[in-house]
């Protein structure tokens, strides 16, 4: 078994080669590359339409590099980091298992490759919410067309790719070689084509993969329909855990018991905000919002169109209501705002028990349905769709990287007012880097990341409870973070561990000694078993036809006429040792009256002069030598001797 790590700890992607299958686990897209780009402005009067060029680099690239606040930014169509492994051919991939809606984003890059013939498995909410995420990304990027890329040396080559990190260039090129493979975003058609490849699975639905492995998605408690994967062969179990949450939020709770007894336990996607407690952050957010509204300012939440925002809507409106700010409007701006709100309310099966109980009443599981009905929460496809933006207000919009989407415009218009606030709740991007091109800003920025994924404490407890034979996880999780070398609590601690680094390959030995099969009842009925001992052990020689349809072994009755007559294996064997007195007695009974026995060191020799036969007996073998006969004596001797042995 081999495991190729193509991702990073927060952007998981791995390939498992096991039992002849190539299984891709998750398909994340590295979006952090866009932080190196100039924000895509919506309005013509944006400062980004006329950003000053950066001139101290290759002249061919000058037109595409801008300098703002001492930060160099690329001014062209943004590129994204796609997982890549040179030693894996895309046509080899048999299945892609997707865990949640954020780790599906690179899927179209694989499925649009004509060599890809695999099947994708994901839950229904993962597919639907993943669709919002992907389409929103594409719509944001395509809303502001940029010149494709610069021509350098006659080749179309995005300047971003040429920026060599070794040049000590002031531009950050992602965190690692994850984004060696940089690509422009896919088309909308590629998204729908990709999602057509998906086979929908439910939680705890066992899916057979080519008869070799059974894959099961179990709830991971992180987002709607998010799951961990259990891969089982006949005797072994591989568990893949990513972005899991033991906290109680809106999705159905994490399923833990079925993750037990794993031979291999792959753990990735721990919290990206290990130092920030989600509950405390929610409290801070509520306070910050109240504070801003009290001062007459607007609150801006950079967000994705699904996920933690449902909890934000619920908590914030309750909190504001309780503090007398119940009249301030909430705006949710996203091309998929309406769908996301409506869709979340029809997913009873995928929700926490509390929310599920509401459905039985029947009431909408999420309060945002009522908020929309009451006009508290307004949703809009885009900024210009709002007839009249009542201020002060609380506004949710994307994209959290602040590089595209309606939010770039709002930041420019609201940024100069010190009463306004921007609250970062996504831990995916470093917020200061997000804000850098917009500086100077007067508005207050709050960094309150809510990442409900397992923290180190929870993860350590989980693996201690589940006791896998071998834990595989990222090297980053196995040492204190670079920024906090003294924090030994931010480390995974488990004795049997193998570490992953980006691009690494792990070789694992999974031993098995038996293959499982089933036996046809007709064959079974013809077996003549012999009871061996008091404990009831039964033994029998068996010859069967091995049927391997669907990669499952089945033993059926062989048709002997198809068998080479001289190569048919014997139907029975003789076992044990011969006892000389019993043998002699039987020989006498059967008429070999002249038989004479002569003992030697290990066995005995019987001579039968009347039949010209000699029988040499050793503990585990017998040699019958007959001379000049027609074989009758041999057959008779054989029968007698076998009757003195065990035969089956």
């Amino acid at each position, binding site marked *: 078994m081999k495991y190729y790590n193509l991702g990073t700890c927060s952007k998981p992607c791995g390939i498992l080669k096991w039992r002849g299958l190539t299984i891709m686990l998750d398909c994340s897209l590295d979006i952090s590359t866009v932080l190196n780009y100039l924000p895509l402005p919506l309005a013509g009067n944006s400062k980004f339409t006329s950003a000053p060029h950066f001139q101290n680099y290759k002249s061919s690239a000058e037109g595409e590099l801008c300098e703002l606040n001492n930060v160099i930014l690329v001014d062209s169509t943004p590129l994204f980091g796609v997982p890549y492994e040179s030693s894996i051919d895309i046509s080899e991939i048999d299945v892609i298992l997707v865990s949640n809606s954020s780790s599906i984003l690179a899927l179209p890059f694989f499925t649009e490759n004509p060599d890809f013939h695999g099947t994708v498995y994901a839950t229904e909410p993962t597919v639907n919410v993943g669709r919002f995420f992907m389409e929103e990304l594409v719509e944001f990027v395509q809303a502001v067309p940029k010149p494709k890329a610069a021509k350098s040396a006659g080749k179309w080559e995005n300047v971003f790719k040429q920026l060599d990190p070794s040049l000590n260039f002031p531009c950050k090129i992602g965190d690692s070689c994850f984004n060696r493979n940089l690509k422009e975003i896919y088309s909308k058609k590629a998204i729908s084509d990709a999602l057509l490849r998906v086979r929908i699975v*439910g*939680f*705890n*639905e066992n899916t057979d993969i080519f008869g070799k492995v059974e894959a*099961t998605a179990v709830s991971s408690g992180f987002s709607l329909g998010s799951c961990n994967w259990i891969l089982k062969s006949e005797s072994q179990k591989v568990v893949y855990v990513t972005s899991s949450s033991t906290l109680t939020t809106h999705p159905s709770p994490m399923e833990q018991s079925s993750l037990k007894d794993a031979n291999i336990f792959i753990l990735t996607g721990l919290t990206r905000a290990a130092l920030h407690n989600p509950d405390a952050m929610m409290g801070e957010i509520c306070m910050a919002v109240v504070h801003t509204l009290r001062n007459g300012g607007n609150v801006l939440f950079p967000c994705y169109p699904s996920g933690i925002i449902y909890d934000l809507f619920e908590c914030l409106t309750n909190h504001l209501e309780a503090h007398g700010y119940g009249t301030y409007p909430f705006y949710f701006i996203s091309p998929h705002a*309406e769908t996301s709100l*409506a869709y979340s*309310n*029809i997913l*009873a099966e995928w929700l926490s028990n509390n929310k*599920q109980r509401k*459905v*039985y009443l*029947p009431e909408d599981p999420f309060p945002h349905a009522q908020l929309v009905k009451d006009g508290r929460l307004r949703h809009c496809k885009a900024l210009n769709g709002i007839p009249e933006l009542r201020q002060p207000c609380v506004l949710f919009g994307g994209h959290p990287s602040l590089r595209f989407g309606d939010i770039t415009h709002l930041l420019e218009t609201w940024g100069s007012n010190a009463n306004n606030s921007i609250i970062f709740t996504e831990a995916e991007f470093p917020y200061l880097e997000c804000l850098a091109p917009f500086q100077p800003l007067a508005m207050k920025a709050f960094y309150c990341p809510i990442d409900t994924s397992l923290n180190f404490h929870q993860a350590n407890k989980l693996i201690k409870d589940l006791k896998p034979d071998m834990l595989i996880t990222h090297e980053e999780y196995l040492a204190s973070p670079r920024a906090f070398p003294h924090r030994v609590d931010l480390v995974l601690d488990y004795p049997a561990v193998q570490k992953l680094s980006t691009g690494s390959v792990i070789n694992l030995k999974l031993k098995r*000694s*038996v*293959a*499982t*099969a*089933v*036996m*046809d*009842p*007709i064959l079974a009925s013809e*077996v003549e*078993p012999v009871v*061996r001992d008091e404990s*009831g*052990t*039964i*033994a*029998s*020689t*068996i*010859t*069967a*036809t*091995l049927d391997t349809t669907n990669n499952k072994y089945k*033993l059926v009755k*062989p048709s002997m006429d*198809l068998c080479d007559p001289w190569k*048919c*294996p014997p139907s029975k*064997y*003789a*076992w*044990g040792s011969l006892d000389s007195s019993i043998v002699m007695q039987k020989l006498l009974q059967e008429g070999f009256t002249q038989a004479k026995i002569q003992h030697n060191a290990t066995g005995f020799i019987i001579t039968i002069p009347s039949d010209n036969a000699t029988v040499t007996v050793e503990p*585990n*073998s*017998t*040699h*019958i*030598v*007959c*001379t*000049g*006969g027609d*074989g009758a004596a041999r057959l008779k001797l054989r029968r007698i001797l076998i009757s003195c042995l*065990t035969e*089956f």
Partner: protein
Amino acid sequence: MPEIKLTPLGAGQDVGRSCLLLSIGGKNVMLDCGMHMGFNDERKFPDFSFITNNMSLDEYLDCVIISHFHLDHCGALPFMTEMIGYKGPIYMTHPTKAICPILLEDMRKVMVERKGETNFFTSQMIKDCMKKVVPVNLHQTLMVDDELEIKAYYAGHVLGAAMIRIRVGQESVVYTGDYNMTPDRHLGAAWIDRCRPDLLITESTYATTIRDSKRCRERDFLKKVHDCVDRGGKVLIPVFALGRAQELCILLETYWERMNLKVPIYFAAGLTERATNYYKMFITWTNQKIKKTFVQRNMFDFNHIKAFDKQYIDNPGAMVVFATPGMLHAGLSLQIFKRWAPNENNMVIMPGYCVSGTVGQKILSGHKKVELETGQFVEVKMSVQYMSFSAHADAKGIMQLIHYCQPKNVLLVHGEGAKMEFLKQKINQEFKIDCFMPANGETCTITTKPDIPVEISLPLVKKEEAEYDLQPPDPKRQRLLHGVMIMKDNKLKIVDVQSAAKELDLPRHIMQFTETVNVRELGTLSRVTDKIANLLKARLPDVSVELPAENEVSVDNSRVIVKVGQIPKNDTAKEVSVTWSIDDDELGAFVFALMGTLSK
């Protein structure tokens, strides 16, 4: 041979009161727990004494599975769990769990408040009963215990209806509940994978019917309604609150919209709005089209359909009223029927099956005078129409399902005996499999021949695979596996012969034979050896014959060795000895017999 046993406590050659007891692999499962609408005495509930005579329900049953929320499938559940006593798990889908208690409560009210039933379960009992319910998702593999596994499939009959596969070890049973093989306006079609169960228990409500196309029936229905309201008549459509009602509402709503009709449509108040709310919540259980468009236009938001008030009964002019319950056996629909029946302008459309004993069944069979309560008769002058909208599979659909899942046996329930007989013959003919149709209380035993799980030692398989891969592909070649099967601690394992000796602590005893004959042959040893070799080659064309020494012939890699020796003081004869092991007895005996032919 293992057996699967099935006893219908209800729905055996009958419609209504579905309740089946299944015994499979030592587990006892109750499938559905319904009540009979046509009876008011103790026959309305299944006869649990079948079980309780011997032991308590908890002792006997491993679990109860409810296929969908219709009362003839779940109506007796609180009676069973709370009044007779059952604490074990009950499984149903999410929508069923949501809707079931509402229908139970509704029925309870009718029974207790209108009919004055005294010994009936209470509201609290319904709640307590529902607490024991574990919701299942479609396709989820749920382990009831270590051995009993259940899995639900989409059945399409009503919102949340499921077909259930029950598996213990290698044996499995599929119970369909009620299902529909054609998608309708709000639900999709039933689907199951090719799971090859030992037994398929299927409903057979429409065992002999092959219905015309859905579209025709819809057109027919709309025309009848339209004609009636055109001449100022009132149309009564008795329905159950959930299910067909929503489909017909969608149908009428779109028709009214298209034809721009102004005649009011009413839906019996109370349940309706809540009921359609369930459809909104569980929209993932409806069909593709509704799922896709629900954000823009929710099919269950009706513009033309208003809530009904009892005062409207005597309003003049045309109207269309949906009223519950569907079989005209009680409640509002019966009340309206009583008032409207004497007018020949009016019409009642029965959109579904009516069990015997109900008013609905009586008027459908042509009764012109119906006794509603003791001594109270009503004359039926209104036109009575029957439109089969109930979402059951017809004969074609049942055959289709059998074709899908490829069962080894079929058992028919939830249908009329005579019709079952017909379908049974058809199944026998078409699929050549056994078909059963037990009556209530009659136990049906099906002998299964399950495959037996066995482990094969990996080296043995690998060796076979390696040999197989070396040979040129030949579809006719069978892959032979040879070894010793050992059963220890109830586990079967096949190992190669050498390992078997170790495992059993019993060495093999190898027997060898040497037969020597004198043959009349002149010349040198090598000449005789060549002659023997040539003879063997000719007679054994598929076996390798080699000459490792001048006086020795090896047959098939030394399985049989022929040695030629001089006989002292004899030039005209040679001594030929043939040696082989007991494993190669056939080949050895054959070679020896050939040598015998030389000597003559």
